């Protein structure tokens, strides 16, 4: 009888442990980040007080992240969701939230943390028309490539964490101050590093470089895609080729989530060099947001100077 009772207790404990997901009662704030950039910034701000899981990987196209059931369970148990925002996650977050049954992290709820909150959007479409491709109604959402915007993202994230976990306010404010100071130092370094990019005419694969180009003075001449989200056609590529030759474009930027073939083919025909960058942190093997910006800038400078990225 005693052994039966012990077995029963063991089973009950095991079931309870399973239902609680194996998490101790003092679990950290469980944060799910949609993309690696906001994940890294959130980690740096939250420190040991939070745990962060990421949905998309740095090598992926944020417009084409698979909707996996394993993401649903992460979101179901999340205390907060951090998105980059401006509709960048439209391909997967709405569908996942629909299945996640967690109204705390629904858009507009307290624990839905939108990193775009203080960003000034560029390329806000004046009309919502699909003849212009897959437009983001709120503006171009690829602001993470500009480190100055990174500071604004950090601020929105820190405020969001504080909103969800007021007891950790001091921790998050310290984290924000540390991250911002670090980023400021790097921004000063990058200003010198990226000097060769000023005035550089470039073609990119997707229309995602406006913030980066504005920051470092690059001129965007065209995209390999016909329109945002619309794959290249032969006619468009011929037109782009003529434009590149006329404008003397020396660098083609391929975001690593996209097919390398077209960029290489254009480079062969025009004599331009291909710079491979990642529009998300971690895509080029970088460790986080700051490393990723530096890796992108080094790749661009190397292509501009005709050397290999160091």
């Amino acid at each position, binding site marked *: 009888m005693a052994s039966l009772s012990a077995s029963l207790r063991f089973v009950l404990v095991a079931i309870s442990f399973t239902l609680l997901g194996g998490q101790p009662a003092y679990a950290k704030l469980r944060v799910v980040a949609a993309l690696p950039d906001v994940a890294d910034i959130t980690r740096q701000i939250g420190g040991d007080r939070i745990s962060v899981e990421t949905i998309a990987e740095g090598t*992926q196209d944020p417009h084409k992240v698979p909707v996996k059931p394993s993401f649903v369970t992460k979101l179901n*148990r999340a205390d907060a969701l951090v998105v980059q925002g401006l509709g960048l996650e439209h391909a997967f977050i709405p569908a996942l939230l629909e299945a996640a*049954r967690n109204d705390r992290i629904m858009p507009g709820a307290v624990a839905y943390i*939108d990193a775009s909150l203080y960003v000034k959007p560029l390329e806000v479409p004046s009309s919502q028309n699909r003849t212009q*491709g*897959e437009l983001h109604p709120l503006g171009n959402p690829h602001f993470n490539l500009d480190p100055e915007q990174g500071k604004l993202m950090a601020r929105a994230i820190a405020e969001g964490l504080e*909103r969800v976990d007021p007891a950790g306010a001091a921790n998050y404010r310290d984290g924000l101050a540390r991250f911002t100071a670090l980023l400021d130092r790097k921004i000063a370094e990058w200003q010198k590093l990226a000097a060769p990019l000023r005035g550089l005419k470039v073609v990119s694969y997707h229309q995602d470089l406006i913030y980066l180009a504005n920051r470092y003075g690059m001129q965007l001449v065209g995209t390999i895609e016909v329109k945002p989200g619309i*794959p290249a056609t032969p006619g468009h590529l011929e037109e782009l080729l003529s434009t590149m030759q006329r404008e003397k474009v020396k660098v083609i930027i391929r975001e690593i989530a996209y097919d390398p073939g077209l960029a290489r083919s254009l480079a062969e025909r025009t004599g331009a060099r291909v710079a491979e960058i990642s529009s998300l942190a971690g895509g080029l093997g970088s460790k986080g947001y700051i490393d990723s910006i530096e890796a992108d800038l080094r790749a661009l400078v190397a292509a501009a100077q005709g050397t290999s990225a160091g």
Partner: protein
Amino acid sequence: MRSFRSRGLPRAALWVGAGLVLLATPNARAADSEVERLRKELGQTQQELSDTKQKLDDLGQRVDSLQNAPPAPATAAPMETTAQPGPATARLAPVNVDNPAISFVVDTAFAHDARNSWGSIGYPNGADFALKTGELFISAPIDPFLRGYAAINGTSEEGFDIEEAALITTALPWNFTVKGGRFHADVGRLPHWHDEALPFSDRPPSIDRLIGGESGSEGVEVSWLAPIEHYIELTGGVYDTIGAERLGDLNDNGFFGRRDFSELTVLGHPHTYFDLTDTLNLELGGTWFGVPQNSQRNVYGADVTLRHQPGTSGVYQGFVLGSEWYWNRERFTERDTTGLVIDRTRLNRQGGYGYFEAFFDRRFSGGARFDYSESPDGVPDLARTGSVFLTWMPSEFQRLRLQFDNTWGDQPTNQRYTIQWTAFLGSHSHGFAQR
């Protein structure tokens, strides 16, 4: 002599050198002046460059300081412009609460059948153009606890019908969700998908015959997501019946109204998922539904889907390997001309399909399918169908598909060629369930 010469040569050299210096002095003075002028010009340019750089830095700092400025107070009207800091927690697309998301799907096809056979699974003889689906899809949150959607569907053959009109709870505790109204019951994988979302130009014949087209139903469904790291979802439901064509049959026979509880259809559907590797995942499901009274009908099904979804530049490549199999055990009542029951026959029939679809790049995918099906009633009318299909997507909102089907079995072999053209107007998404 040698010493004289040795003394005399330097003297001559001195004279020559002095002459050259005298001759060269005006040129050297001119060069110094030019160097001085260039130095001054360089200094001025460097100063101008430095001033310009300083101005650029100042402007950059001003822009940054403006961008870092505190957000507008909550009393400001944040929806008027996207250039201002957003509302308190999120920057969301402006939505008129009175207008739901609306979309329309145009799914049209041309098909040609070589032989006049397999009319029982929708293969008529000859060629025809058809509106396979014209679907108006409407969805919106209703209040903080409920959302709703409707799919109003028209086809060349059947006219317009309300395919789905359902309400779904959004805020029940304990991970429960309740759905009610007319909707596709949660049977397997493809039976509850809309036609235009299928990876083929047709619904697999086995699903068409055994389930009765899509899993249309009127009823109520409860699903529960296990609150653990591993994905497990359980669905249970009660319905008038399951199967769009079966529902039509029931309604045609005057079964709009009441019936005994035991004559309702009951469903259970556990469903789970495994990440095998970073890019390879597996979904497994089991389905049972039936009519309890006298075990009138019992359908058992199993579905398996293996997906390869790579990251980086191969994000548009990958493959799906999917299969479903159903066993239908059903009792059919036969009557004589006066309406007297003369026989009750219990038939065991089965069918299923397996398919492979490879995604070559962002635009093209293609694959093959094999389907085995039996008629649920009457003679088995066994059919085997081998299909190949190629899909081209000029954009995310338009699709062109070619499909060839070869069907053989208890009727003469038939070949069907189909060209399907599908386009999505507006915000069309069936969400997580039809991923």
